[in-house]
Structure formats: structure tokens, C-alpha cells
């Protein structure tokens, strides 16, 4: 087993990105990736844990069924006290193993399959156009691209899919934001989750007498889950369905504003897509997902038995955190991985959606939203530029999902 070059004082995770390019993973993760073995790190409560940063190691950990996602197992690694409160109280199927996980996930896989999601394109496009129309109609030609476009777009879409009234967006976005803060006190996180679950359970109950064609209503009609279980599933879809895409959208726009040559490539890819060839736009979106990788909290697993990963023996009962952003910059998988290249061959091999049986269920929807949103912004707001100096932008360092708190733009 390789043990060389382990630092005497283990790194505490999450590590900071500060002081580097805000698109790059924390330098400590990138250093760890250059070493032979998995890194031994410490969590917020001082407990030890392994950290995987290489593309191949992350694939192994996330796909090997000897690793468990069951957060109720003793020793399961959590990135913060708040994350622990969130996952242990009411585990959703992303914190379960098969067969329990598969049973619940399969109730939703049809909704997010490639063909079904592709058919949603006109609806997503209509939402994007409407938001951009409103922005463009403003007298000042300035906006916050997060609040005015990137956040409402996926929020409206996931509300339509679930059958949640979008009028409640301020409420669920607030709950969701608290739940995703890695620095929030556990009580606050727990309270936000309870509020959201109560709202969704009430919604499920209401659909019994007034059904619609949303997912919540269908789960109610199927009768396999009670209202609390439906609320739990709805909370997972609602939170995951808007925060990740929203942050990918605003961060992508910023990355393109900083790199006009890549923005031009995106415009060209969009022109080809309009002409019926979507391959270049697919690649462009996959590359942005790889380069930006907004899920920064580390995907956690625990070994059910001894497993060797990339030269390190992980003992039964030990936890591993998979740092997706670091894996997506691994030179062994992506040559010149620190560079954004919207024509990169093999960009789809990125790990931004995780890997293994828990790989993001909403991946096709997220890709569709980005395929629609990014060309629409560039086309509709020509001359788009930052309205504040780059150095003044506030990045989401303290959130499980990275991105921007605001993106003030002008055009």
C-alpha cells in the first residue's frame, strides 16, 4: 500500500478555493490528486476519512457495490453537522442502497428518460424566452442573471414537472438555500427541511381530491407511498432540480463572458443545433459541466468490506469523499484539463453528475436546460457584460452547490 508523502497534519475538508481562479477546485484537492494514494483527511468534527480526487478512483468508489451510500451506517462521512442532520433525519433514496434505492428510483426514471426529456424542449424554451423578454424589456438594460434568469428557469420547469405551484418559489428557494449551506447550524437545516416536507406532504394530500398530471399527483395515484414518503421524494427532486442547474447556468455565463473565443464556439454550436446537428452543442454543455462541476461538497460513501482503491486499502467501515471537481480536472482523463475547451473530445466522461447507480436522475433535464439557456442568453442579450468588477462577484463558497450568489450584468 502506498503511504508516502502523506502530510503530517491531515487536511480538513472542505478546503477553500480562495486565492485561486474561482473556477478551479480547491488547490489542496488538486495537490492530493498528484499523489499515489487516496488522501487521509479530517472532517469538521475531527473524524478521519479518505478523499478520492482522481477520475479513475472516483469512478471505482461510486460504481463498486462494495461501497454503500447508506448514511445511517456508523462512520458514514458527513461534510458538516448540517449535512448530517439533513440526511440522517429523513433519508431519501440517494442515501439508500439497492434494492430499496432501486425500488424508489424506478418510480421516477421514466419521467427523466432521454426521449421524454427531449420532448420538453419547446416548454423549456418558452420559459427561457419569457424570462429573457422580461429582462430585455427593462429600461436600465441591467439585471441580476441569477435572480432574473438562472434560478427561475429550472425552478419553473421542476415545478411544472412535479405539480408544485411556482407561486411558492420564494418559500421553497429559501428552504433549499438553508439546507445547502454547509455552515448552517443543524437546527436551522432541520427546520428548513421540516418546513419544506410539511408543505409537500400537504400538497400530496391536496392532489388526492384534485389530481393533475405532475409527478406528485401520479405518485399519490399509484398508492405505493404515503404522503410523507412522497414529500421526501418531492423535496429531493425540487431541491436537486433547481439549485444545480441554476448555478451551472450562471457560472457558465460568467465563464463565457471571461472567454469570448469559447462564447463564439457556443454560438456556432447553437447555430449547428438550429440546423439539426446537436453534437457540438452537446459537447459544449458537457465540457462546461466538466470544467465547472458545481457539486463541491464531495459525494460520500462508506466501505461495506475491505476494498482496494488506486493502491489504498479502504477498510470496512471507513468513509470516502469523492471530490468530483478535482476528478474532472484529472490530466489522466482530460489532457490539459485546466483549460475550458468546448470542442473537447470525450468531455462526456466527466463526473459532474456523479457515477454509479446514484448517478443524477435529472441529468437529461439539466443538459436540456443548459442547451436551451446558454444560447438563448447570448443570442437575446448581445453585448452582454459584467456590471461589476469580476473581483466583486460573490461566489458560493459556503454552499454544497457552488456558483454565484448574484451575477450583475448589463447589455
Amino acid at each position, binding site marked *: 500500500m502506498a503511504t508516502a508523502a502523506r502530510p503530517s497534519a491531515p487536511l480538513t475538508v472542505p478546503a477553500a478555493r480562495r486565492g485561486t481562479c474561482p473556477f478551479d477546485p480547491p488547490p489542496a484537492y488538486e495537490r492530493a490528486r498528484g499523489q499515489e494514494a487516496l488522501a487521509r483527511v479530517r472532517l469538521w468534527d475531527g473524524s478521519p476519512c479518505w478523499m478520492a480526487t482522481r477520475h479513475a478512483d472516483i469512478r471505482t468508489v461510486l*460504481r463498486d457495490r462494495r461501497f454503500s451510500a447508506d448514511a445511517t451506517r456508523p462512520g458514514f462521512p458527513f461534510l458538516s453537522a448540517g449535512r448530517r442532520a439533513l440526511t440522517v433525519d429523513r433519508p431519501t433514496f440517494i442515501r439508500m442502497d439497492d434494492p430499496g434505492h432501486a425500488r424508489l*428510483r424506478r418510480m421516477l426514471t*421514466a419521467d427523466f*428518460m432521454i426521449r421524454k426529456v427531449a420532448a420538453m424542449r419547446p416548454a423549456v424554451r418558452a420559459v427561457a424566452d419569457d424570462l429573457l423578454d422580461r429582462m430585455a424589456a427593462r429600461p436600465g438594460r441591467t439585471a441580476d442573471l441569477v435572480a432574473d434568469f438562472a434560478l427561475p428557469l429550472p425552478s419553473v420547469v421542476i415545478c411544472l414537472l412535479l405539480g408544485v405551484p411556482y407561486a411558492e418559489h420564494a418559500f421553497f428557494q429559501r428552504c433549499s438555500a438553508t439546507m445547502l449551506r454547509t455552515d448552517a447550524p443543524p437546527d436551522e437545516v432541520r427546520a428548513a427541511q421540516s418546513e419544506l416536507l410539511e408543505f409537500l406532504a400537504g400538497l400530496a394530500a391536496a392532489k388526492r381530491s384534485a389530481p393533475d398530471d405532475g409527478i406528485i399527483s401520479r405518485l399519490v395515484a399509484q398508492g405505493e407511498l404515503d404522503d410523507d414518503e412522497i414529500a421526501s421524494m418531492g423535496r429531493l427532486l425540487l431541491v436537486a432540480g433547481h439549485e444545480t442547474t441554476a448555478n451551472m447556468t450562471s457560472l457558465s455565463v460568467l465563464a463565457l463572458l471571461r472567454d469570448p473565443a469559447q462564447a463564439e464556439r457556443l454560438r456556432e454550436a447553437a447555430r449547428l443545433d438550429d440546423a439539426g446537428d446537436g453534437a457540438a452543442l452537446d459537447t459544449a454543455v458537457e465540457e462546461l459541466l466538466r470544467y465547472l462541476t458545481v457539486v463541491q461538497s464531495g459525494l460520500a460513501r462508506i466501505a461495506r468490506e475491505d476494498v482496494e482503491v488506486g493502491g489504498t486499502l479502504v477498510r470496512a467501515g471507513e468513509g470516502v469523499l469523492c471530490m468530483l471537481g478535482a476528478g474532472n480536472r484529472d490530466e489522466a*482523463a482530460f489532457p490539459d484539463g485546466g483549460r475550458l475547451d468546448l470542442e473537447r473530445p470525450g468531455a462526456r466522461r466527466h463526473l459532474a453528475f*456523479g457515477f454509479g*447507480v446514484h448517478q443524477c436522475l435529472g*441529468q437529461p433535464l439539466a443538459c436540456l436546460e443548459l442547451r436551451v439557456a446558454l444560447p438563448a442568453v447570448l443570442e437575446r442579450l448581445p453585448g452582454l457584460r459584467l456590471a461589476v468588477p469580476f473581483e466583486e462577484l460573490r461566489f458560493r463558497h459556503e454552499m454544497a452547490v457552488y456558483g454565484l450568489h448574484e451575477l450583475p450584468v448589463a447589455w
Partner: protein
Amino acid sequence: MSPDRPGASGPAAPARALRVEVDQDRCCGSGMCVLNAPGVFDQRDEDGIVVLLDGRPPEGVWREVRDAESGCPSQAIEVTEL
């Protein structure tokens, strides 16, 4: 199973055919195979689980088929060289 790195998966002697098999019980419905090799894989309407369209795909799509095998998050695809 093919190795992780692209370009490192080619056999020493050229294969004459590829046999593709899928395990619907293992499938998690991610749809990655449909993105990688759309003519070879599809998803069931009722639950998004993998459907094999072509168990002996033509040589022109072998690369895509191998990408689908390596990119399958649940190891539900097995490709054998014949």
C-alpha cells in the same frame, strides 16, 4: 470490461464481431447508453430501463458501444469480442 482510458481499449488482434448484452435488473435508467450509442440502446417507456436494439452492432459504432459500456454507471452492459 474495457479499461478506463479512451484509446487504451483496443484489442491486440482485431475483433470480428462484438456481442452486446444488457442486464435490466442492474440498470439504473441513467440513459447514458442512449446518449453514447443511440442505435444500439434505447429505454423502456414505462420505467426508462435499458432496451438492447442491436446485440451485434456494426463496426462503425463499436467505439460508441465501448463508450456506453465504460460509461454505464451501473455496469449493466457487457461487451464481448467474438
